[in-house]
């Protein structure tokens, strides 16, 4: 029966040799290698839930009077986009579950992507022959950030409108082309042409998802073509030889289990933990804003950078050269992205190491890289945390202005400290590794010596009597 199924498949497609190779594809084993899989599975769930949402969402800014079941909004003038989302949330069965699961999946997609990126960075998995895999991954991260921003901007609730205002301000601040860029994208000064909603919509549901899908496929194809990296758990694992579990059967149930576990977590979050209750924010009005507005977590680092900047535009007389949002909204993410893209090349330049590496470093094995990565990460995280100073003010009553002044210093000081501390810790760990090695070696030698003494004693005892035959002891003397 099974044979027949395989024969039918092979007859029609000729893929039996490929399938055979694929089933026995060896995949080195480590828990941290699963992070990337969670990213993939979150994407699968995003596509499925997102497709469902498009069946109800109305990408239109045309005004309509809300007459649905949510009492506080009844009679209000809202856009059709906003109306359709509230309708989906309250009147479509399972609509709110799917919508919240979609939102949570986007948050998890980006969290796991960042964790996966850090795993790859701190183990040196981005080195040759996998630099292109890394580059594609970084491109995917930034495509995903834009995708997420567009997703919650589509809804046309008050928070999404405030996010778009900032997006408009940032686009406008780009030197040389800012005015043209913002007007071109929006079609008119903010809030822009009505067609802007359609532009965001097609970008969110087609252009960027297809882009992410293509990048994802290329990323996975390259992973498969180069085979997976491995830690050196056994001496058999070298840059030329890998030891791993076969895709089938060992890896398959685990990986599928991870897919279902990801789905489980996302649907439980979607059902139990409220996220982005747009009916509470109300429809977007240009003349309104709300205090305590925070973006989704993955844009927190940008709002932090925008808030931290001291207030100045670069001007020549009354002619503005560089408006302020440029620093936090354009330059900062460009520096972060540029550093990520450039890192494999930078590291090759600094270390002169152009070798192929299939065996991973432990973070301590490359103190310079680990220290730089920790410092860089700290820098971004501190700016992120600075963006939540308004929340800290509410909860801890610490003055907002004092906090901002403090962060303006800390974001430059702490990363430097982190750099030196991390490097030191790495060297210490390496040192303790060496001590451990020396001790193990000494213990082995001591054991061998004890053995030798034993043997000699036995030999001496034996030689007191007439030897029974060949001297077995002599072959054990010098191991």
């Amino acid at each position: 029966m099974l044979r027949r199924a395989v024969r039918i498949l092979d007859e029609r497609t000729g893929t039996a040799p490929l399938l055979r190779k694929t089933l026995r594809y060896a995949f080195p084993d480590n828990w941290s290698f699963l992070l990337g899989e969670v990213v993939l599975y979150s994407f699968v769930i995003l596509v499925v839930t997102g497709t469902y949402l498009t069946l109800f969402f109305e990408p239109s800014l045309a005004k309509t009077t809300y007459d649905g079941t949510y009492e506080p909004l009844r009679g209000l003038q809202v856009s059709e986009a906003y109306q359709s989302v509230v309708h989906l949330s309250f009147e479509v069965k399972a609509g709110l579950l799917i919508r919240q699961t979609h939102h949570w999946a986007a948050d998890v997609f980006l969290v796991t992507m960042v964790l996966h990126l850090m795993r790859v960075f701190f183990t040196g998995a981005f080195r040759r022959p996998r630099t292109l895999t890394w580059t594609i991954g970084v491109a995917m991260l930034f495509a995903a950030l834009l995708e997420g921003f567009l997703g919650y901007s589509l809804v046309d609730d008050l928070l999404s409108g405030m996010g778009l205002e900032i997006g408009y301000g940032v686009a406008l601040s780009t030197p040389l082309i800012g005015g043209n860029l913002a007007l071109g994208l929006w079609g008119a000064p903010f809030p822009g042409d009505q067609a802007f909603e359609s532009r965001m919509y097609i970008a969110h549901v087609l252009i960027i998802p297809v882009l992410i899908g293509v990048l994802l496929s290329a990323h996975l194809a390259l992973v498969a073509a180069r085979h997976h990296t491995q830690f050196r758990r056994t001496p058999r694992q070298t840059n030329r030889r890998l030891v791993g579990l076969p895709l089938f059967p060992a890896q398959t149930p685990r990986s599928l289990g991870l897919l279902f576990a990801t789905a489980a977590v996302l649907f439980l979050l979607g059902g139990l933990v409220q996220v982005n209750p747009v009916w509470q924010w109300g429809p977007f009005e240009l003349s309104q804003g709300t205090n305590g507005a925070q973006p989704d977590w993955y844009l927190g680092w940008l709002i932090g950078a925008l808030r931290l900047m001291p207030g100045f535009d670069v001007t020549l007389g009354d002619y503005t050269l560089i408006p302020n949002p440029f620093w936090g909204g354009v330059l900062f993410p460009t520096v972060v992205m540029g550093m990520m893209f450039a890192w494999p090349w930078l590291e090759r330049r600094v270390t002169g190491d152009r070798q192929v590496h299939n065996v991973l470093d432990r973070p301590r094995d490359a103190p310079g890289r680990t220290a730089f990565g920790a410092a860089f990460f700290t820098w971004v995280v501190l700016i992120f945390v600075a963006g939540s100073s308004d929340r800290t003010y509410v909860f801890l009553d610490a003055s907002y202005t004092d906090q901002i002044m403090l962060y303006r210093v800390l974001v430059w000081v702490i990363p430097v400290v982190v750099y030196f501390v991390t490097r030191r810790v790495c060297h210490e760990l390496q040192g303790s590794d060496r001590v451990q090695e020396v001790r193990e070696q000494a213990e082995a030698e001591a054991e061998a010596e004890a053995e030798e003494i034993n043997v000699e004693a036995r030999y001496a005892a034996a030689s007191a009597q007439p030897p029974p035959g060949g001297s077995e002891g002599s072959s054990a003397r010098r191991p």
Partner: protein
Amino acid sequence: MKRLASWLVALAALLFSRRRSGRDGDGDRDRDREAGDERVVAPAAPDRRAELTVIVLLFAAALAAAGFLVAYAVDSVSDSTRLLGIALGLSFALVAAALIALGRWLVPVEELEEEYPEPEHPDDQQAVAQIVHESGDAFTRKRLLLAAGGAAGTALGVAAIAPALSLGPWVNTDSLYDTPWRGGRRLVDENGHPLRAGDIERDTFYTAFPEDAAKDEIGAPLVVVRLDPAALRLPPERARWAPDGILAYSKICTHAGCAISLYRTPLFAPTAARPALVCPCHYSTFDPADGGSVLFGPAGRDLPQLPLRIDAAGHLRAAGTFSGPVGPSWQGVRGQRPS
């Protein structure tokens, strides 16, 4: 995705074979091997308890999924989002547990050794270069050909993306200066009622719009406050812009364009000595007494002020246009007054 697909096929095959051998006993498994080939997969010992666990987990998952269907079908279920989420999430979690148990106890976990593929293939590199090179043997004027091809490609590429210019006014950015405010236009509230100077109180703020004009343009909304006329420190040329201490500013922050919707009045003199208009997006803080100058935060330009006058009926009217361009800055924005 390809890998995922192959896994799915593989799982289907696995489940299929298990069901089959379960029904027919071990004889079938032997028949599958009777072609005489060696085992490929390492043998694994049966584990009845683990097998039972997997079976129970899968049945439980089916039950949870059925629960989802019931919750979906029955209209009277209150709080259905939670119930649906729990049922579906639980079903997924049970399948996940079953798969993980299966992978842990019922499937042989064997380590394979394999060579890494060669990182580079010099012979093939050479061959590829040669194929391309030799294919062009018939060309005698390669440079000219390349130039012509480049010209065609570039021109065609530019022509192909040119229609994107229809998206908006990419070249002429004058519309960024537009506001509906003109001298004489009345200030109205969100319901269209004119604002009376006598109704404007201290220690609170009002949002105002131009009468008979669009409200949802970036140049339209105003924030109106009343201060003690003696406390004003306006530039001399704006001396008459705030009749009776009533001031109007653009409500759109000059940093990133959010609506300025916080008004800090001096509740505690030692730390907040004077009233301030604050944007909730990045906490740019402006001084309404001082012509909208920046007190704190990332804004790099004063808040544009609109000159006011009080007409014979006691209504507030614009006495001209803003003191500067409204909204976030762009390169080339000048301190000129908007048209």
